[in-house]
Every structure is written in C-alpha cells, then in structure tokens.
C-alpha cells in the first residue's frame, strides 16, 4: 500500500524545505545591494563584479581547477586499475591488505589523512605546492573511483570478455574493446566524483599545500572565518549553479541512455 498520506506529504515538504531554504537564501542575498548580508537593501549584481576583480579568488579558482583536473584523471586511471585488480585479479600476495587500503581512506577522518600525507612529504623533502595537493587528492579519490568501478565490474557478464580472449584478443585488446565500453559509465561517474571531491576539499588541501598555491576552499574558509560577506555569497551562487547544471544534465543523459537501451531491448525481443 504505497500511498501518499498527509504524513508523507508533510515529511517530504518539510524535509526538502530544510534542505533547500538555506541554499535559496544564500542565492537571494548574493543579489543584495547592502554590504550587510542579513539586511535587504535592494537588488544589485555588484558583488559579482567585485568578485571578477578579486585577483586572490581568481587565482585560487585557477589553482583548484588545475588540481581537480589532474587529480581526478590520475585517480580514475589508478582507481580503475585497482577495481580491476580487486574484481578480476584473482589471488595474490597481500590481497587483504590491498582491499583494506582501498576501503580505509573512505572512512578516514580528513584531518588524519591530511596530517599523515604532510608528514610524508616533509620526511622525503618534497616541496609543498600544487603537486603535493594533486598527490594527496589522487590518493583518496582513487579509492572512491575504484568502489564505483568495481561494483560495475562485479555485475557484468564475464563470458563476453572470455569470448573476446577465445577469439584471439590479447588481454589488453579485450579490455579496451569489450570491458572498457561496458564499464565506461561507471568510469565517467567515478571521474566526476573524484573531480567534485577535489574541488570541495578543504582539510587535506590545507595540510598538503604550500604558501604559494592556495585553493579556492582554503581561500573561502579563511574569508568566512571572519564572518559572512556578500562576495562569498556571489561565489557560492556561481558554484551552486554550475553543480546544479552538471547534475541535472548528467541525470537527463543517463535517463535517455536507459530509455534507449530499453527501446533496443524491446526491438530485439520483437524480432
């Protein structure tokens, strides 16, 4: 008996109001003419122009984008390899340790990951900057990628891959022309996840970065520690808009893919 009782409607309304009202308020006040964030003084877009002139934020955004692109790409390659090893690798020495190292970073407090990586970089004498942040982000997001990819790898029919091998493909060819296209959606969503994790990270980046390469979250954090500012509201609005467009596009694309797949299956069944 799935029915929408008054209880369910109230729960959904209140729940989504709780989730979205703070964000909506944040967006509305980014168009506030007043410097005081909590007092409405008419519509204005001046904070967006202020933001465009703020070198510190623009530089930080550029650093963050570079870090996110590099680390999510590296994490996708490493994470896909790790997933393949976990699902198809068979038995090898230290397999338990390997899967432990894949799962542990997912639940590790960021302060510990950040601290331990910083101590490593200092111990080996690596100068901190964009490169060390990329290494740190790659390490924790490759684990997220490998979880996403391995759940896809575990459910698909292995016999297709074996058929390719029987027909004379090398293992690498079989992976490239059979396995990779099938797991591609999972690889792409893994990449997107790694990318957003990197864009969003404050704690690990604070530990592993150097003075010359401040990322956007670090810049935002040090500015909002002093209180709310309309410029940050404007910046937040831009970021929220980008994420919303991204998520909606992704869900529409995947919905269309599912519909197309269903239509093809029906056509195949009809013939």
């Amino acid at each position, binding site marked *: 008996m799935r029915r929408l009782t008054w209880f369910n409607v109230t729960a959904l309304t209140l729940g989504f109001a709780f989730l979205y009202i703070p964000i909506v308020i944040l967006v509305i006040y980014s168009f506030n003419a007043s410097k005081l964030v909590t007092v409405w003084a008419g519509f204005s877009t001046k904070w967006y122009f202020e933001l465009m002139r703020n070198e510190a934020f623009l530089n930080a955004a550029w650093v963050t984008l570079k870090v996110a692109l590099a680390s999510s790409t590296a994490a996708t390659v490493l994470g896909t390899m*790790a997933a*393949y090893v976990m699902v198809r690798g068979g038995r090898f020495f230290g397999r338990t340790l390997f899967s432990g190292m894949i799962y542990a970073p997912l639940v590790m407090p960021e302060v510990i990951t950040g*601290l331990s990586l910083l*101590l490593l970089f200092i111990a080996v004498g690596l100068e901190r900057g964009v490169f060390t942040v990329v290494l740190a982000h790659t390490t924790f997001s490759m684990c997220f990628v490998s979880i996403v990819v391995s759940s896809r790898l575990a459910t698909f029919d292995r016999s297709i891959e074996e058929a390719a091998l029987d027909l004379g493909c090398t293992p690498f060819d079989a992976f490239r022309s059979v396995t990779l296209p099938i797991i591609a959606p999972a690889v792409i969503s893994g990449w997107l996840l790694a990318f957003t994790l990197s864009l969003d990270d404050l704690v690990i980046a*604070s530990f592993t970065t150097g003075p010359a390469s401040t990322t956007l979250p670090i810049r935002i*954090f040090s500015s909002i520690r002093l209180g709310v500012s309309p410029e940050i509201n404007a910046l937040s609005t831009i970021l929220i808009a980008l994420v919303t467009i991204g998520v*909606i596009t992704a869900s529409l694309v995947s919905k269309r893919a599912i519909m197309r797949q269903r239509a093809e299956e029906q056509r195949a069944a009809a013939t």
Partner: protein
Amino acid sequence: MNLRRLILIAIPYLWLLLFFLIPFGIVLKISLSETAIAIPPYTPTLDLSAGWQGFTAYLSELDFDNFSFLAEDDLYWKAFLSSLTISVVSTLLTLAVGFPIAYGMANAPEEWRPSLMVLVILPFWTSFLIRVYAWMGILSQGGLLNQFLIWTGLIDTPLTILNTNTAVYIGIVYTYLPFMVLPIYATLEKLDNSLLEAAEDLGCSRIQAFWLVTAPLSRPGVIAGCFLVFIPVLGEFVIPSLLGGSGTLMIGKVLWEEFFTNRDWPVASAVAVVLLLILIIPITLFQRNQQAQREADE
C-alpha cells in the same frame, strides 16, 4: 603469473602503500617522538647513514610521553568525550529527520522517485563548505532566523545560536542528511508491500504494521545510515570551527589547532593515533553490517 598482471597489480598497490600506509607509519613514529624547537620540530630523527647502530639508538629514544600527556591533560579527554557525545546525538537527530523523508520518498508515486532522488543527491554534490556557510547568515545574532522569530513575536531579544553546540548540531544534521536518507530509502523501496497488506488484513492498525513490519525490515538501512553519519562526524573539523564556539570541543578541531597553531607535531600525531583507535570499533561494525547485508541480498 605473467608480467602484465604483475604490473597491473603493482601500480595501484605501490601507490597506496606509499601514500596511505607509510604515512601512517610516520604518524605513529612521530607520536612517539619528543617536541623540539628545530626543523622538523621533533626528536629523535632517524639517521639512516648511521646504519643499524643509529636505528637502535633511535628506538631507545622513543617513548609514550605524548600519550601519557594526552591522558593527564583533561583538555584531550574532554575533547574525545564531547566528540563522541556530539557524534551520537547528531546521528540520532539525523535519523529522526532523515527517516520520515526516506519513508515519504519510498511511498511517493513511482514516477516522482527519480526526481526526488536527484533532489536529495544534489546538495551532496554542492560544496560542503558552502552548505555550512549558508547557515552562518541564518543563525547569527542579526540573522534571518532571529529576524523571523522576532517578527512572529515568539521572542523579544535575539537568541545566540551561532557559535554554540546547537549550531553545530544543525550544521551536522543539514550536511549529513543525504548519507542517512539514501541507505534508508534503498531498504524501504525494496520492501514487499504484500507484507504490509497481510499485516493489515490480520488486524494490525497502520501504526502497528509500521512497527511490526516496516521498522524491522528497514533496520539494515538505518544501521548503515547511522554509521555513515557517525564515523565522519567524529573527526569533523569544518562544522565545529565555523558554527561552533570556543566552548565546542571536537577532536578534529583540537588536532588542527595542535598542528597549525601550537605547532606541536608529536602531540597532534598522538591525537591522530588515538582517534584512529577509537574509530576502529565503529568501522569494523559497519563493515560487518555491510557484509551481512550483501550476503542477505544474494
């Protein structure tokens, strides 16, 4: 074992050893060292050029002073205890807020459900920092919540909410809500409706049917959701430092300040080791719950 397979295994394996396991070894090592005014700010440092003798000399200098320091100074005790309390209370609060949402979603018409899912996931993709920041403007003294409450006539003088533990709870429930809603929704969605119908046919009221059928069957999702909130909240840094006040003690914040403000690396490392030891229990329980659920699904 061919060479290709070896390389495929070796690359991610070595990466994780180098950037995950070895750093922990270093944290453990430094937690057993002493603070010093030097670069790096601790002693002893391992001198590999001195060979085996250097290594034994190094080992003899290690001690547990930092850990006994943690045990003696009640700041750390209080921080660990208050982190645990905040994590437990906020997990229960998130459950109280999240369960009705998941229940409502599972009972919504089928064609709504994908959109409702996207609505729950969307905030999760939005920056964590921004979602915490959104509450700063709402909860402050002259903030919108106080303006609203004064306007309705409920209160005369503005309440102090920002920089208290209440603000921390609101922030945690808000940011971790998707982690609670999604696993509960996943179990409720799979629930066989005929069981509820049978219960009602046999004379249960709807509330009885909920307690006798829905509640026990949703337990795996509830447990998973609780762990997914509890574990990260225990080491949380951003929420207590932005929404909490000077009285909000959380271990993630203490570790951060020990490291960045006091520059006491050995104590920060010791705090990290203890936090990790505390986390092992819930993490093991969580893994066991997931394992049991996977087996039940098969």
